[in-house]
C-alpha cells in the first residue's frame, strides 16, 4: 500500500486546488511544465474506444492536455499489443493511468461502456446518440451521479443556444414550473435521414477475420453476420440504433431541449403516423407529435413519407419568451424576475477541472434522447402511447414498455 503523502493524484490535486486556489495563482501550470507545456501533474491519461468514423474527432473534443495511452476497436483482431491497442474495452478500463475515455463505438455500446468507465473512475465523452433505449439512459445518469464522474454527450448545440439571453430566460421560465398551461408548438422538419439510414435486408455472410463479431454484437443478439450491420449502416438496425431518428435526433433536438427545458422532463403522450415497423430494420415514418404535461407540443416531421410534401398539420407557434412570460400572473412574474440566471454551461474540459456536471451531462442527454426513443416506440407499436416522466414507464402498455426497457445479451447488463 502507498504511504500517506505519496498518495496525491492529479485528481485529488485538482480537487484540493479548489480550496487553495492561491497556490495556482502563484505557480501556474504552464510554468511547472516549462516551454508552455502542461505540467505532468496536469496531464491526463486518455483512451479512445471505437476508433473508426467519428473516433478521432471525438477524442479531440476532450480538449484537455492528455497523453493518448490506448485505443480500442473490435475490428483489430490479430493486430493488438494489449499495451496501446486493444480489442476488448475492459482491458482499457482496468488501467489506472487512464483518466478520460472517449467513446465512438456504434450506439448499442454507448451506455454500457460509459457506465463501466465511470465505475472504473473515468470521466467520459461519448458520441451521440447516448443510448439505444430509455432504460439505458437512466442507468447512465445514475452511474454519473453515483460515482461522481463527468459525462458529456457528443453533441453541442445547447452551448451555442445558451449564449443568447432570450434562450436562457425561456429555459429558466419553463424549467421553473411556473408555466402550467401553454399553447406552444415547435415543428422540426427534415434532416432525419430516414430512408438513408433505414437498414437493408441482405443475406448473411462470413464476418471478416479481423472483426470480433461476438464482441461487436455485445449486448445485442448474436445474429449471423450481414455486411451492413457493421460500419455506418448499423444505424438502420434496431439491434444497434434507432435509424435516422435515433441517430440524428439528439443533434437536432439538443438546442430545442435546452431552450424549452425539455431535458428536465419527458413527453406524456406520443402519437406517430408511420407504416408498420419491421422487427429488425428501421424504416419509414411520416410525423410524430409529442405532448408535454403543460401543453407544449413538439412535432417531428420526416419530410420523406408518404411523400416529401406530407405535413402533420401543425405549425410552429407561441415560442418566444414574451409569450410564456405573459402567461404568468403578476405574482409569478415577480417570482420569476427574482430568479437568478443559471450558471453558464460547462464544456467537458471545464467540467473535469471543476468537478461539476458538464452542459451535456447524462441526465440532460438522457431526457433529450427519451424524445427520440418515445417517438420510435410509438412508431414501432403503431399506436398512441402515454408516458410517466417520473417513473419513466409507458402507462398501460406492456409492449411499449418492453421497448423502453430491453433485456441484454449476457454477460452484458445495466
Amino acid at each position, binding site marked *: 500500500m502507498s504511504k500517506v503523502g505519496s498518495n496525491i493524484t492529479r485528481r485529488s490535486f485538482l480537487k484540493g486546488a479548489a480550496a487553495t486556489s492561491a497556490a495556482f495563482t502563484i505557480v501556474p501550470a504552464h510554468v511547472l511544465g516549462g516551454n508552455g507545456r502542461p505540467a505532468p501533474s496536469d496531464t491526463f491519461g486518455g483512451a479512445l474506444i471505437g476508433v473508426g468514423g467519428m473516433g478521432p474527432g471525438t477524442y479531440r473534443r476532450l480538449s484537455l492536455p492528455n497523453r493518448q495511452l490506448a485505443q480500442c476497436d473490435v475490428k483489430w483482431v490479430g493486430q493488438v499489443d494489449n499495451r496501446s491497442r486493444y480489442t476488448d474495452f475492459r482491458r482499457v478500463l482496468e488501467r*489506472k493511468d487512464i483518466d478520460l475515455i472517449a467513446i465512438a463505438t456504434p450506439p448499442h455500446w454507448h451506455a454500457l461502456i460509459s457506465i463501466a468507465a465511470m465505475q472504473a473512475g473515468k470521466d467520459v465523452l461519448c458520441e451521440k446518440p447516448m443510448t439505444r433505449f430509455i432504460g439505458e439512459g437512466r442507468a447512465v445518469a445514475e452511474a454519473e451521479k453515483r460515482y461522481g464522474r463527468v459525462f458529456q454527450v457528443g453533441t453541442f448545440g445547447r452551448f451555442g443556444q445558451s449564449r443568447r439571453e432570450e434562450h436562457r430566460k425561456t429555459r429558466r421560465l419553463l424549467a421553473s414550473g411556473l408555466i402550467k398551461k401553454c399553447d406552444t408548438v415547435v415543428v422540426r422538419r427534415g434532416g432525419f435521414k430516414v430512408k438513408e439510414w433505414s437498414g437493408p435486408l441482405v443475406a448473411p455472410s462470413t464476418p471478416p477475420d479481423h472483426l470480433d463479431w461476438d464482441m461487436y454484437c455485445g449486448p445485442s443478439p448474436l445474429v449471423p453476420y450481414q455486411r451492413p450491420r457493421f460500419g455506418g449502416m448499423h444505424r438502420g438496425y434496431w439491434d444497434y440504433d434507432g435509424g435516422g431518428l435515433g441517430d440524428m435526433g439528439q443533434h437536432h433536438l439538443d438546442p430545442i431541449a435546452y431552450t424549452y427545458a425539455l431535458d428536465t422532463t419527458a413527453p406524456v403522450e406520443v402519437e406517430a403516423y408511420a407504416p408498420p415497423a419491421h*422487427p429488425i430494420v428501421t424504416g419509414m415514418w411520416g410525423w410524430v407529435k409529442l405532448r408535454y404535461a403543460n401543453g407544449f407540443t413538439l412535432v417531428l416531421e420526416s419530410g420523406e413519407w408518404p411523400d416529401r410534401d406530407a405535413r402533420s398539420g401543425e405549425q410552429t407557434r407561441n415560442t418566444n419568451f414574451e409569450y410564456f412570460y405573459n402567461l404568468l400572473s403578476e405574482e409569478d412574474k415577480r417570482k420569476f424576475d427574482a430568479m437568478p440566471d443559471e450558471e453558464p454551461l460547462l464544456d467537458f474540459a471545464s467540467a473535469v477541472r471543476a468537478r461539476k456536471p458538464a452542459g451535456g451531462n447524462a441526465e440532460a442527454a438522457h431526457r433529450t434522447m427519451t424524445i427520440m426513443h418515445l417517438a420510435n416506440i410509438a412508431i414501432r407499436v403503431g399506436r398512441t402511447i402515454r408516458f410517466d416522466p417520473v417513473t419513466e414507464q409507458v402507462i398501460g402498455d406492456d409492449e411499449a414498455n418492453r421497448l423502453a426497457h430491453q433485456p441484454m445479451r*449476457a454477460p452484458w447488463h445495466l
Partner: protein
Amino acid sequence: MNKTTDRIEALLAGLPDLDRHRKVDGLPPDEADNLAQRLIEAGSEAIIELIDRSPAEYDDGDYRPRYLVHLTASYACRPGMEAARRMLASALAAALDGERSEGHKAFIIGELQYLGLPSAAPALGRALVAGSDRLCECAARALQAIGVGGPLIEALDKLDGAPRRSVINALAPMKLAKAAPALRTALADPDADTRILASHALAQLGDRDAIQPLLTACQTYDGWEGIQHARSAIIMAERLAAAGHVRDARRVYTRLGELHKHEKDQYLRDVVQRGIAQLHGTS
C-alpha cells in the same frame, strides 16, 4: 394449393417489394391493418405456414412472410384484440416446439417476446434447455421481458457455460428470492463472467446471505472483475439500506473502502463516504 396457401398468397401480394437498395418501403397503416385482420381470420395454420415459408435467417430471400407475422403481432397487441393476441401466441408457441431451424425459432421467440403473454413461458422454458446457445439466450431474454422467472430458475442447475450466463443475466432484474441459493453457488463458479453476473443478481436482491461471499469476491479479484464486484457491493449496500438493514449496509461500505486504498480509487472511497453519510440519516 390448398385454401390456406391461397389466402397467404393473396396476403403476401399486398406487401410491397423491397426497394432497389433492399430497404422496406412504407405500407399505409390502414392497408397493413387490413392484412393483419385477414391473417388473424385465416388462423393459426396460416401463421405457421407463413413462418415455414420464410427464409431460415431474416434477410436471406423473401422478407414478406416474417414482416406479415410481425405487423400482425403488433396489430394484435392493441386494446380489444386480446383473443387474436392469444391465438397468435398459441400458434407461435406450438411452432417453437416443432422441428424448425435455429433461425426460424429465434424469430418465433422474438415474436413471443413482443406479444408478451405468460402463456408462452412453458415453450420458452423448453427452448432454454434444448441444447442451442443461441436459442437459450433468446428465450432467456424473452422470459425476462415477459417477467416469468420460474423456467429460468428451473433451468439454472441444468446449464453451464454461455446458457447458464444467459439465465443468470435474465434473473438479475427479476429479483426472485427463490433464485438466491443457486446464485450464491454461481458466485463461486470457475468462470469470471458467471461470477460477475451472480454478484450483480444477488446485489439486486439485497441478499444478506450473499454479503460475505460478495465481499470475499471483492477482495479476491482485481481488474475488470474487481470493478464489477465493487459495483455489486455498492448496489448491495444501497438495497440493504433501503430495506432497513443499516448495519449490514455499513459493513459492506466500510469493507469496500478498506479494500480500495489505491490513490486512483479515491472516487470509490467518495462513494463509500456518501453512502455511509446517508446511512446516518436512516439509522
